[in-house]
């Protein structure tokens, strides 16, 4: 005999689902069209940042599978370490260009402040994520960088609980705690972009300033109907 179904109005699951779908209906989460103004090379750097992060995590997983010393004594290990290092460089390069681009677009406009904030915090969290990698290398770089970095961190008390000369602690931060934080922040950032849409050009402000004063809708753009997403290149 099966148990009676939970009252939908009291179900936490139903509430979370309804809130989720309301905030991000599928066609907005995974759109098949985008505003015509999204036509510049600068937009490439956002997805390039995410793509770099995927390559970082992929190469990092391979390095983690074989252990932290593997790359020192095998050619294959060194190859994947090099991919890991260069994808980190590409990640920061793409992220910095992306951030500058978004600054000059004033991409926080139209209720998108949280999009900027999550992006900026991602950059700040990515810095210690990279630093912990540098001090976990088990080579001269790690020795030098850890003995130099300790002074700045100790001076503000951070060294009391974040010891850059403790390889075990740094390795844990590098392969687990900080990647989780970065991926979580990037996920939140992307979901906020999907929810609010890509910030429109300044021109929109000028043309529709009058409407702005009266329009109650300050949310993101409506999800693009598939029927309007064809042949609309301007």
């Amino acid at each position, binding site marked *: 005999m099966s148990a009676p179904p939970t009252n939908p109005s009291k179900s936490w699951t139903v509430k979370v689902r309804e809130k989720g779908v309301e905030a991000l209906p599928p066609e907005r989460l995974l759109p098949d069209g*985008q505003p015509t103004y999204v036509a510049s090379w600068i937009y490439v750097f956002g997805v390039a940042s995410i793509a770099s992060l995927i390559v970082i995590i992929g190469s990092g997983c391979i390095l983690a599978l074989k252990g932290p010393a593997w790359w020192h004594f095998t050619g294959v290990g060194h190859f994947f370490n090099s*991919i890991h290092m260069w994808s980190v460089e590409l990640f920061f390069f793409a992220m910095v260009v992306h951030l500058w681009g978004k600054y000059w677009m004033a991409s926080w406009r139209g209720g998108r402040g949280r999009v900027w904030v999550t992006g900026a915090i991602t950059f700040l969290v990515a810095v210690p994520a990279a630093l912990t990698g540098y001090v976990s290398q088990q080579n001269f770089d790690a020795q030098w960088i850890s*003995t130099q970095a300790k002074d700045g961190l100790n001076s503000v008390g951070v*060294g009391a609980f974040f*010891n850059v000369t403790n390889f075990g602690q740094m390795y844990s931060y590098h392969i687990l705690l900080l990647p989780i934080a970065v991926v979580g922040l990037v996920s939140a950032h992307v979901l906020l972009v999907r929810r609010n849409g890509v910030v429109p050009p300044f021109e929109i402000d000028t043309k529709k300033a009058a*409407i702005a004063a009266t329009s109650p809708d300050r949310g993101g753009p409506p999800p693009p109907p598939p029927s309007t*997403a064809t042949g*609309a290149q301007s």
Partner: protein
Amino acid sequence: MSFLRPKDDTQPWKGRYQPYDLIKELCIAVGVIGLLAVALTVLFSSPDDKSSTISQWSHELPADFATAAAKELDETSDTAAYGPPYNHNGEGQHAAFLYPQKWLGVSHPINTAADFVIKPLETVPNDAALQSAVAEYKAAPEKQKKEWSEAYAKPLEEYSTAVEEKKTLPSTVSVDPSTGTVTVKASGAGPVGTMMTSLQSLAQSGGLEGGLVTSSGQFFQTDYTKPLLFMADGGLLAKRAEGLHLLGEQWGMMNETGSFPGQPWLWLYALWYQVEPFKSSENADVLVMLVMGVLSLAFVCIPFIPGINRLPRKIPIYKLIWREHYRAS
């Protein structure tokens, strides 16, 4: 409109949409970035300069090792005088009334005399003369210990200064580079001479770094704080770093060994160390960290900072970014 929420008349887009395949774009981007990373790997590889060891240090720079070890014993080394989080021998850095280093306390206690010299020597087997010297040293009053260790450290420090300033070397210290042995003529050093000679031998045998790592008694260890701090008190790491352009005045740790890009995203952090008043300040680290903390907070809060959040409107770089849109409309 408020101070934090300036007038914002940005409207949701009601214009046209163009076809867009988000998943396809992401897959292509991963492919391109992956290929780029492989290409950079094939072209440039990545650096992996072998780590230095205490054994290497005591062989290559025996006098420097002996000087550093003597300073650890008489507790005048950088680590001995560091303060928190290693000991209470200093207050650490501060900025005005802010003493965060002191406030967070000693979390990784290190007694340089005991941890870097005496305890490792106590692990040396079958050396009655050494163990007798260690026992004599440990049993002596603090004042006597200080006199012995200072008497031994003084000629080494004079030797070190003479080497640094390229002056005539004092006759009280002689170094045999072929064997890496250091002979110190120090009167009134008590048992310290025997102890330090044994420490040099222990270091050269490779036993000291292992002893420092496992000094907590645990078989499995991942904490290299003690050997790293001991080595940082000497000159080997700095000597290598200088040759590899990694010193603080060479923009320090944002660089990487070889000609690799390192961590260029730390440029602003490293910049402050190159300019006054930070450059010559004894509290440079805490001041730079506080400045970076404020700048980081400002960076996150850019949308809410008057003036900074209006700058993109006033400097029309956006016309370049959206030139296709403006041309079409």
